[in-house]
């Protein structure tokens, strides 16, 4: 890292209807540094990055790149200046190959290849291939880049078939292909397994050594302490301060972010387990491609108990949760809720049996994005009194209920009537959690419940989940975050290749042992 400033924002202000997303923000990035950007949900991090990338125009303020003031009209301008961005929600076309995604907008054409003199029929040939893509040439370049940076990608793979970790690599290669020397990574680790995150850090370090400057947004304080050269903290649209990891610790960062002290560990009484609420016997489930993803899983959860399912993503947890919530039909096995086997495995029937579901993918299964926040908050109960009386919605009841949840769960939104799509990623998550935890239930199925949340919100939701348990609710917690499982669960089951390979009491569980089980190593 040098003191040469490559990117600088001066007094950036951006207003959306009802919110001041960025308020006179100053930010700078030095050559060859990893500059972490922290801040609670809705603090304005993504907005600032979108401005630096040319997607939004600031209402006021200046942007300087390599010592010169610039105006960014569109990403085209920022790309030309060497800025690349990996977005919080990936910007890849699923039905395109890796090559097509990477070349999009920066295509290499056949006529640009080779510098032969053109005469006669060759000229004709060139005119014919005017706009023809050179897929092979690009694939070769991609192969070179991946080799150079150790970013393994298959240029011919269909992006929609790739796991998120690889998709992210494609995004990084996409930026490097455009010769980006300033790289913005917006919450890159939120969707990664710990192993994948480690891999990402290795790549980031390598890029830094080659002089690439990186802005790294995350909510995970451990990661910040481990990889950042400098740390800037934002709160409510403003910059609170910039520190170095040497001069700070996690607790201080947390309190800078949320403006109060955060308790990073969860306090929990021993469990008072009651009668059995959920029983699963010999469940077998096929995934979307028809392969058996869950191969004979059995377990039970009692009232007032949290069962944590640990495991590297993609070992059948997604399918298991989908089956338990009626989104996918198992082809063998039984599901019993409160001792009764459900005849009807539809989502509504399961929901009415007293089940709450926090889905893994909030945008696909958790929210109706174009609907107002208030409508999303009553999505499971709109047809029941007091929200729906004789098929007529009761706006007053919905309004006061929504207002209460927005307050209780600290959902940062200008009002209850903006579309859920306008909220920041973390606040969208809070809408889902608020809806699911606020109705009378006896079983909570939570899949990655704190994905993308800031430490303050995680603290709140963790406490909420424990409180639910203490009220006698059975909780199934699925998380790729081993810390989360260790902190909350009373019992831990480890899933590997569609089976539960081990089940232990949380008190006697050892981190390393669980890590080994997750990796498929058995004593």
């Amino acid at each position, binding site marked *: 890292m040098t003191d040469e400033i490559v990117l600088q924002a001066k007094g950036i202000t951006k207003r959306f209807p009802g919110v001041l997303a960025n308020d006179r923000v100053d930010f700078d990035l030095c050559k060859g540094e990893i500059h972490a950007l922290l801040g609670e949900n809705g603090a304005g991090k993504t907005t600032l990055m979108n401005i630096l990338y040319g997607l939004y125009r600031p209402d006021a303020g200046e942007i300087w790149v390599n010592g010169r003031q610039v105006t960014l009209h569109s990403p085209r301008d920022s790309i030309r200046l060497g800025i690349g961005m990996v977005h919080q929600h990936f910007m890849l076309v699923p039905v395109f190959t890796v090559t097509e995604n990477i070349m*999009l907008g920066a295509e290499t054409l056949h006529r640009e290849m080779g510098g032969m003199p053109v005469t006669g029929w060759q000229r004709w040939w060139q005119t014919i291939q005017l706009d023809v893509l050179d897929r092979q040439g690009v694939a070769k370049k991609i192969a070179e880049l991946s080799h150079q940076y150790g970013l393994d990608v298959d240029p011919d793979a269909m992006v929609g078939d790739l796991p998120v970790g690889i998709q992210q690599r494609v995004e990084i290669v996409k930026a490097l292909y455009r010769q980006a020397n300033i790289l913005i990574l917006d919450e890159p680790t939120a969707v990664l397994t710990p192993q994948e995150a480690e891999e990402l850090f290795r790549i980031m370090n390598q890029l830094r050594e080659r002089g690439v400057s990186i802005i790294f947004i995350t909510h995970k304080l451990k990661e910040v302490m481990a990889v950042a050269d400098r740390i800037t903290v934002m709160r409510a649209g403003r910059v609170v301060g910039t520190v170095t990891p040497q001069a700070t610790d996690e607790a201080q960062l947390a309190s800078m972010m949320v403006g109060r002290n955060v308790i990073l560990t969860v306090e929990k009484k021993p469990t008072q387990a009651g009668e059995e609420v959920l029983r699963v016997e010999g469940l077998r489930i096929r995934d979307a491609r028809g392969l058996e993803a869950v191969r004979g899983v059995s377990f039970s959860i009692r009232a007032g108990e949290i069962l944590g399912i640990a495991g590297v993503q993609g070992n059948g947890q997604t399918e298991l949760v989908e089956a338990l919530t009626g989104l996918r039909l198992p082809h063998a096995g039984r599901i019993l809720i409160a001792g009764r086997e459900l005849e009807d495995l539809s989502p509504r029937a399961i929901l009415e049996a007293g089940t709450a579901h926090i889905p893994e993918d909030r945008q696909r299964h958790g929210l109706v994005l174009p609907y107002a926040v208030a409508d999303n908050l009553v999505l499971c109960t709109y047809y029941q009194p007091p929200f729906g009386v004789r098929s007529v919605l009761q706006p007053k009841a919905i309004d006061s209920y929504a207002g209460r949840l927005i307050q209780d769960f600290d959902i940062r939104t200008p009002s209850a009537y903006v579309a859920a799509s306008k909220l920041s990623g973390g606040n969208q998550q809070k809408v889902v959690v608020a809806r699911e935890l606020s109705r009378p239930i006896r079983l909570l199925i939570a899949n990655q419940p704190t994905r993308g949340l800031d430490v303050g919100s995680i603290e709140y939701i963790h406490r909420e989940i424990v409180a639910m348990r203490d009220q006698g609710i059975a909780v199934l917690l699925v998380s790729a975050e081993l810390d989360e499982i260790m902190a909350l669960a009373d019992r831990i089951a480890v899933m590997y290749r569609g089976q539960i390979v081990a089940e232990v009491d949380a008190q006697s569980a050892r981190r390393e042992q669980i890590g080994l089980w997750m990796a498929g190593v058995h004593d």
Partner: protein
Amino acid sequence: MDWRRFGFIALIIAILFSVMVLIGRVQTSPIVIVTSMMATTIAVATPLTLGALSGIFCERAGVVNIGIEGMMLAAAFFGWLASIYLNHVYKFAPLPSLIGGVVAAVLTGGLFALLHALLSVTFKVDQIIGGTVINILAVGITGFLNRQLFFEEGSIFGGDVPHAPGTLPRIAIPILADFPVVGRIFDQQPITFAAILLVMVTHFVLFYTRWGLRTRAVGEHPRAADTVGISVERVRYMNVVIGGLMAGLGGAYFTLESVSSFEPLMTNGRGFISLAAMIFGNWTPFGAWAAALIFGAAQALQINMQFFREVIPPQLAILQISYVVGLAPYILTMIILTGIVGKTVPPAADGQPYEK
């Protein structure tokens, strides 16, 4: 487009052809019947093919266009009108008048498409409503002008429809058209040839060029396209207008190639059937063309049947009622759209206005 789908299409066409052969073989040799059916099928599929290509350009860029029917109708009218003007008022020879008419038709399609782009891309009006507006507008304008110009006292043509300059001449492909019997298939009119050529060109453009890559990206994930510096609005505008030009050429078929007159509502649902062909062809040019040929074959059956009315065997007496056969394309449309031959997948952002 998978092979199962092409197989299904081939099967249906084979069935339709067989029916004709069964009926006509007492009078005419099967080879002659099949050849004649094939030639007619290719010709009458032309507007459907062009309509489907029009839809492909629009929808691959993410804009639903149900206004193709109206674009074709308007193009048919204005192309025809232009040819008459050129021929009678400006005294051009028939062939240049017809060519001028085709140009006018194509431009009409483009102009209506520009309106559709304005409504759906710039003003973000619901795209179905935008398309409906175009359909209604086309019916109104063509009907009104047709009456005003030709049937009102004191109008330019004095309440009398002048003779149109005929239809576009046939072009025989050298060598191929000289084969006995089957040569007939290679002796077609220019818009028909153009449609087939455009199928190939569209396929190439869509899947092998920068234009096509960007178009498809905008139709699948406009925000991703935006983040790599592609202007979503520009791409949508261009493709919708190109689609309009195609629909315009399809419209020209009705009044300048098939017959030499205009009748109100003469497109008769062809624009909508071409959308069905586009869907059944899974938004690919060759698939859509193949699907258009099914409808072409059904129509060819109806046309050829007229020559064999007397010899229809009693078991098939029902076919004597001409509208039973006439219904075939519409019934086929419904069957095909139920998805019995597997599901098709539209572009992911099809029909959604793009907002930053």
